C-alpha cells in the first residue's frame, strides 16, 4: 500500500524524493481539503457540456457560417484574409517578407513554446497564480501573447482592400494612398544595427544580473535571451517601418530582413 500510494497518489512527492527535496509540509493539510470527483466534479463537467451544447446550438441558429460564391481562381477577393487565427501572421506580411512572416516566425514561436519548460529553471510558482515569484517569465510571455492578439485584432478589424488601414467606421470605397517612400538601411548600417541589438542584448542582461547568468548556464542563457530578443525584434521592426518608413533593416543578395 505504501508503495502504491507513493507512486500513484503522490507522484509529485515521489518526484521530490528522487530529487532529494524536502517534503512539502502543506501536503498533509491539503489531503483534508480533497474533494470527490464523483459526483461533485462530474456534475460540473456535465453541466458545462450541457451549457456549451446550448450555446453552440443557439449560436448556430442565429449566425450562419459564411458561404460565398464558388471558388474562382480568376477573381481574387480583395482583401483576401486568412482565417482569423492566422490573420496575425498575415498582418506581419506588411513588415516582413513572407519567408519570415509566414515561415520563420511561426516556426520560432512553436520551437520557443516547446523549449519554455526546459529553459525556465525558476522552481517557484508551480501550480498557482503568482506574479512576484516569476516576474521575468510572466512579463515576457504575456507581452508575446498580447502581441499575437493585437496583430489579430488589427488584421481582422482594421485592414481593408490591398491590406490598407481602414477604421471600422471608414468606407472601403475610399482609396488609400500606398506607401511609396519606403527605404532600406544600407548593408553596413543594417548589419551594425543588428549586431549591436543582438550583441548588446545578449551581453548586458548577463552583466547586470550575473546571478541570472550563473543560474541559467551558457546554453540556457543563450536560448532564453535569443528568443526574447527575436520576439522584441518584431515590434521594433514594426516601429521602424511606421515611424521612419524603413522597409528592410538588412538587404543582402539572398534575403532581406
Amino acid at each position: 500500500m505504501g508503495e502504491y500510494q507513493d507512486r500513484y497518489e503522490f507522484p509529485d512527492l515521489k518526484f521530490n524524493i528522487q530529487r532529494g527535496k524536502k517534503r512539502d509540509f502543506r501536503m498533509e493539510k491539503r489531503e483534508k481539503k480533497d474533494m470527490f470527483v464523483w459526483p461533485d466534479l462530474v456534475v460540473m463537467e456535465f453541466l458545462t457540456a450541457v451549457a456549451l451544447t446550448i450555446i453552440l446550438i443557439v449560436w448556430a441558429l442565429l449566425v450562419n457560417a459564411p458561404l460565398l460564391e464558388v471558388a474562382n481562381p480568376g477573381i481574387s477577393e480583395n482583401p483576401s484574409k486568412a482565417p482569423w487565427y492566422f490573420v496575425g501572421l498575415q498582418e506581419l506580411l506588411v513588415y516582413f517578407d513572407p519567408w519570415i512572416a509566414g515561415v520563420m516566425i511561426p516556426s520560432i514561436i512553436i520551437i520557443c513554446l516547446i523549449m519554455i519548460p526546459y529553459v525556465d529553471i525558476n522552481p517557484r510558482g508551480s501550480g498557482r497564480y503568482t506574479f512576484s515569484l516569476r516576474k521575468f517569465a510572466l512579463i515576457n510571455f504575456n507581452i508575446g501573447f498580447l502581441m499575437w492578439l493585437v496583430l489579430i485584432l488589427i488584421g481582422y478589424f482594421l485592414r481593408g482592400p490591398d491590406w490598407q488601414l481602414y477604421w471600422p467606421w471608414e468606407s472601403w470605397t475610399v482609396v488609400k494612398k500606398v506607401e511609396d517612400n519606403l527605404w532600406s538601411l544600407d548593408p553596413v548600417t543594417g548589419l551594425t544595427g543588428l549586431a549591436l541589438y543582438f550583441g548588446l542584448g545578449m551581453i548586458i542582461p548577463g552583466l547586470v544580473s550575473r546571478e541570472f547568468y550563473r543560474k541559467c548556464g551558457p546554453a540556457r542563457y543563450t536560448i532564453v535571451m535569443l528568443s526574447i530578443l527575436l520576439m522584441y525584434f518584431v515590434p521594433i521592426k514594426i516601429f521602424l517601418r511606421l515611424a521612419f518608413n524603413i522597409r528592410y533593416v538588412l538587404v543582402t543578395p539572398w534575403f532581406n530582413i
Partner: protein
Amino acid sequence: MSRKKSLWKRIRRSQVWRSIFRHDYTDTRKNRILQIRSNIFLHIHPARIPSHAGKIRFTWCMGGITFFLFIVEVITGILLMFYYRPVIEYAYQDMKYLRFDVPFGIILRNIHRWAAHLMIATIMLHMLRVFLTGSYKPPREFNWVVGVNLLVITFLLSFTGYLLPWDQLAYWAITVGANMIRATPFIGHEGPFALVDKYNDIRFMLLGGTEIGANALLRFYVLHVIVLPLTAAVLVGVHFWRIRKDGGISRPL
C-alpha cells in the same frame, strides 16, 4: 408497488445487470471511488482531487472545454461527411445542398464551424492558464510539449477544414497560406536559398500541384478527416494520461 419494487430488485440482482454495474449506488466513500475507477470513461479522473482544482477561477475549465469541443467536432464532422464529396465538381454543390435541402444541415455545418473557431480560442486560453499557473514546471515539462503539439494540430485542422467549402473565402484564404509556404527557406521555391523549383517544393507536396485544385482539395480532406483527428486523438490520450502520471492537476508542488 411492492411487486414493482421486487422486480426492480430482481433486475439489479440479475447476472446481466451485475456484469455491467460492478457495485451498487449507495452514497458511500467506497462507491464514490468505485464509480470513477470502474468506468472506462470516467477513470481518466483520479477518484479525488484537491478542492481548488474544482474551481473555475483556477482552471478556467478551458482544457475540458477544448476536449468537449473536439468531441463536438468529431460528431458533427462525421455527420457532415455523409453529405460532402471532396471533388471540385461537387464540393460547393454539396455545401449548397447542406444549406438549403438537408434537414438541419445548415445547423450541422454552423455548429461545426463555430465550435472550431471556439476551440482555437479555448486552446489558446488553456495555454495561457497553464503558463500563468506555472503548470509546465517539473515534472510536467513533457506534457507542455504534448500540449504545444496539440495546439499546432488544432491550427492545422482548422486550416485544412477552411478549404473544404470550396467557395471564394476558402480558396483565397488558403491561397494566402500556400503563398507563405512557398517562401520557406531551402524547400520552398520562392524562399531564400531555394534548392527546389515549383514542381518539387514543399508547397507542391501540400497541394499536390502548383496551384490549389482537385488534388489540394482531396489532400486537405484526407488530412482533415483522417490524419489530423487521429493524431489529435492519440495526443489527447497521452496528454490526459500524463496529467495523472506527472503529478495530477496542477497545484503547488
